[in-house]
């Protein structure tokens, strides 16, 4: 973990309420896809955790949905403004634990961290595929970016206005090893179908670095802190 002041390079909407923000600054604390940064926003006391979509030596990309005061404020920030962040939080996905052909399953704003994961898996010589679930056609984002990585991509929409009609589980192969990120009901449904994998959880956090016990959840191995022991938990650890 490192405290970093990032400069906003771009901050643009991808859909009606999903934004992509590119930040410039020190990314040395970010060591695995699936980690998050915790941002200080003017007038808010608690930092806001946002998962890292992608990063390189010079900066990182965040993709976030406007859901409350914090993300609303974030969406109004302009290039050149700075953001104070704790960077490199959480465990992230364990690449070594992935088989050769993991299925990346993302729902809504659960999609972004899987993009960075896909890149790292490819770099590690593996052959991931992706299933990206959305509610409707207008809410789809980043499907092109996944496709540009040269991996098989299936898009699902609940209302059938694009891609396969249905949920991500309708597109899942049997007994797959999955790397998942999305809302909890989706994680649960995917967990039921999969034979193994890694699941990224969300929680309201206090500190984001394991001090306050604000986001612990019961697992097979006792309580774990979503922010520090997670956000990614192994298939076998999860207790619904």
């Amino acid at each position: 973990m490192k405290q970093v002041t990032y400069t906003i390079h771009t901050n643009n909407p991808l859909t009606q309420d999903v934004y992509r923000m590119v930040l410039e600054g020190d990314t040395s604390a970010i060591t695995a896809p699936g980690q998050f940064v915790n941002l200080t926003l003017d007038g808010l006391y608690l930092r806001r955790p946002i998962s890292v979509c992608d990063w390189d030596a010079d900066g990182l990309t965040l993709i976030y949905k406007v859901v409350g005061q914090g993300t609303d404020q974030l969406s109004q920030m302009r290039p050149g403004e700075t953001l104070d962040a704790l960077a490199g939080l959480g465990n992230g996905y364990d690449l070594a634990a992935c088989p050769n052909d993991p299925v990346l399953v993302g729902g809504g704003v659960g999609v972004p961290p899987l993009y960075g994961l896909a890149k790292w898996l490819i770099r590690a010589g593996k052959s991931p595929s992706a299933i990206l679930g959305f509610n409707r056609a207008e809410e789809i984002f980043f499907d092109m970016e996944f496709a540009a990585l040269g991996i098989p991509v299936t898009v699902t929409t609940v209302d059938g206005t694009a891609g396969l009609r249905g949920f991500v589980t309708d597109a899942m192969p049997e007994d797959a090893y999955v790397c998942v990120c999305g809302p909890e009901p989706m994680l649960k449904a995917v967990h039921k179908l999969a034979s193994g994998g890694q699941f990224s959880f969300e929680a309201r956090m206090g500190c984001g670095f394991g001090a306050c016990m604000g986001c612990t959840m019961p697992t097979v191995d006792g309580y774990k802190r979503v922010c520090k022991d997670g956000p990614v938990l192994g298939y076998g650890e999860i207790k619904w």
Partner: protein
Amino acid sequence: MPDLSVNLLGIELSNPIIPASGTFGYGREFAELYDIDILGTFSFKGTTLHPRLGNPLPRIAEAPSGMLNAVGLQNPGVDKVITEELPNLAKIFHKPVMANVSGFSIEEYAETCRRLDGCDQVGWLEVNISCPNVHHGGMSFGTDPMQAAAVTKAVKAVTTKPVIMKLSPNVTDIAAIARACEEAGADGISLINTLMGMRIDPRRRAPIIANTTGGLSGPAIFPVALRMVWQVYEAVSIPIVGMGGVSSAEDVIEMMLAGATAVEVGAANLADPWACPKIIEALPAAMEKYGIDRLKDIIGGAHHG
């Protein structure tokens, strides 16, 4: 060279800054970030006789200039603290630590303190009486002078370490509770614990926190904390550890002027993990600004006559 040292119940602190219980775990997360020996001491995570899993999620909500939490005293239980956490701590912290103890019956408080009494690393026992008394209709020990005194007596009977009673601010008369603790033998008073608050999610039309209510901490409560430290200073003659929304060197000075011998920093550690080192670093300049040579000289300094 300004003198930041204070003496808290016979133990010299290099400075009065003490991370508050529940915001600093057992020290490990922060030791990864800075040398925690720079602290006066710290108060470890509220520890109970038996392990506790705490409350369901969500446990946290945002508040103006603050936050709500309802962690519910999640902790591994006193035995595991003694056999695992304290030996771990010995590697990263080389000063007496403040042991924060909670309980749900008088017997539980006493037994937990008795077990901690044998630990050389523990400098002080800080006894949190904001918990509900399961044998007394769930009313918090800290809201009734008689109950507060009973806990104090029971704890004092099983330990030779200095006992600091940590008070709840959710009371009509904080001075009466403090006096009851002093009369029952408390060596010191710490205050304030969190103010009971809540937030509602208008989308779900339900409380944000699973436990309905949570404890409000952060700068929002600083004026209430300062007032209560002031009132307790006028009511008792034992030392006071002040806390509640402290976030800067200036806040520390205000707290000490109100009557605090040492100052705990809580929520600030969560918003900025380096909050305590920053405050310690800023203290000499703030002291110079206000003409303070020795920090200990200003304890209670705003009370005149």
